[in-house]
């Protein structure tokens, strides 16, 4: 990859990687740090990496950096732990997309990431598998479980409202 291609990758993919990490972490500052860190790593390997794979490389690097952070903090929370009082607080959301993103925060990390990669970036099962280090079948199962959890959450919210 040339310097020109590297800068092209900044223009083309920095926003998408940032959106993905930000939605996953719900933390602007750390999302910025992860994006910068990912591009620093890319720059270190700029000569070795082909431009055709740079997008998935960036997503994969950012994803694994994020996973490391999450594991350190042990901040995973199951949707099943969701109390009705929480739902009452969240009934203030008027926009469905806001509700979905609130629900997304409660999903197990792996479910959340695959759903985000699928919906935000339109990646195939295979591409998501390459980024997250999962088999296609695992990706499919995670998406299925993630969607089920989101659907149940929406159902609960609608019941409360």
């Amino acid at each position, binding site marked *: 990859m040339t310097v020109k291609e590297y800068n092209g990758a900044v223009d083309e993919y920095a926003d998408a990687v940032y959106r993905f990490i930000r939605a996953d972490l719900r933390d602007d500052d750390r999302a910025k740090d992860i994006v910068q860190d990912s591009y620093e790593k890319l*720059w270190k390997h700029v000569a070795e990496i082909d431009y055709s794979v740079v997008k998935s490389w960036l997503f994969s690097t950012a994803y694994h950096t994020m996973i490391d952070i999450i594991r350190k903090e042990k901040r995973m929370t199951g949707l099943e732990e969701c109390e009705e009082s929480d739902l009452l607080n969240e009934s203030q959301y008027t926009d469905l*997309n806001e509700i979905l993103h609130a629900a997304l925060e409660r999903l197990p990390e792996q479910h959340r990431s695959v759903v985000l990669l*699928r919906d935000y970036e339109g990646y195939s099962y295979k591409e998501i598998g390459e980024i997250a280090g999962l088999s296609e079948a695992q990706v499919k199962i995670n998406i299925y479980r993630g969607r089920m959890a989101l659907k149940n959450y929406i159902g609960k919210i609608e019941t409360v409202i």
Partner: protein
Amino acid sequence: MDPERTNMDEDELMASVRLEPDKISFPGKDKLRKSAADLTDTQIEYLSIACLEKDISPDQLQELEINLKENSESRAIFDTFQKTKLVPPAVVFKNKNSLKKLSAGQKVFRMATAGLSAAAAIVILILSYIFVPDLINGRNNQTASGIIQDTTPATIIIAGSNPIIARTKTIIPEKENSLTATEGAIILAVVPDTLPVSIIIEYQSITSVFIPVVSGVSFQIPDLSLIASNNSYIPKEIDEDRSRLRKFIASTFREKILGEKFYTDEAIRPIEVAIAGVNGMNKLFDWNMELRETVDEAGEVKSVYFSSALLTFNSPVRKTSE
């Protein structure tokens, strides 16, 4: 013993003991058959997700559609799943420029561009001060006698102890060399003339005032516009007084230097000059400083925010009563 003969006997023997299946069928077979309408909720959930993910075969899709037509509960499940599709927010990564790597030539070009931009800004400021003396002196200290030389149609305020902004639609020529403002107001458009004339303006407690005007001139007087008073009242500077050049400079500054898509030609404020300076330094040194105003719900400036690697502050703006 002949081995072939032996095999034949065995075949015949086995044939005689072969069991033939009975010609009966399961009586409840029809009950076992299912139609698309019989799909369970779990299956509908699975198919709804598959449909959302575009991972469904044409046959499955057809069956799902049949079921949805006939079963409102399935339709509700399907609709809920369609809502789980996330829409990415319109966020962008602001520090993109800091990620980019420049070649030596590009760095020189960027520094040259930034330098030229700074020089252009300075030239614009100098020119604005040369060609727009109002920037320095303004009209704040002008008195009625000074402004009276102005050829701009104007409203004159006459007041005793308190300035009064009065309005009148007409000024009636009464005599050859005089005009009288009517409707109890005190308004006059003033044009210098070699032949001094005067009008008498009377308004209740206000002392009569004599002001030289041109006789026989038809005036178009904008309501509530003000240029002068017979006391030390200081008129406000108004936009209409700004020259085209100043407006041009202001709009060019905003368009070219601040890079605003939607810009006005209002007077340049110090904060805008400061923002331009910060942007210039960011370009020049590849820094990531940020200077911006924050506004409240009414759109008024609430504070000034500055951020850099060394210092970050958010300074509230002190509001002065007018």
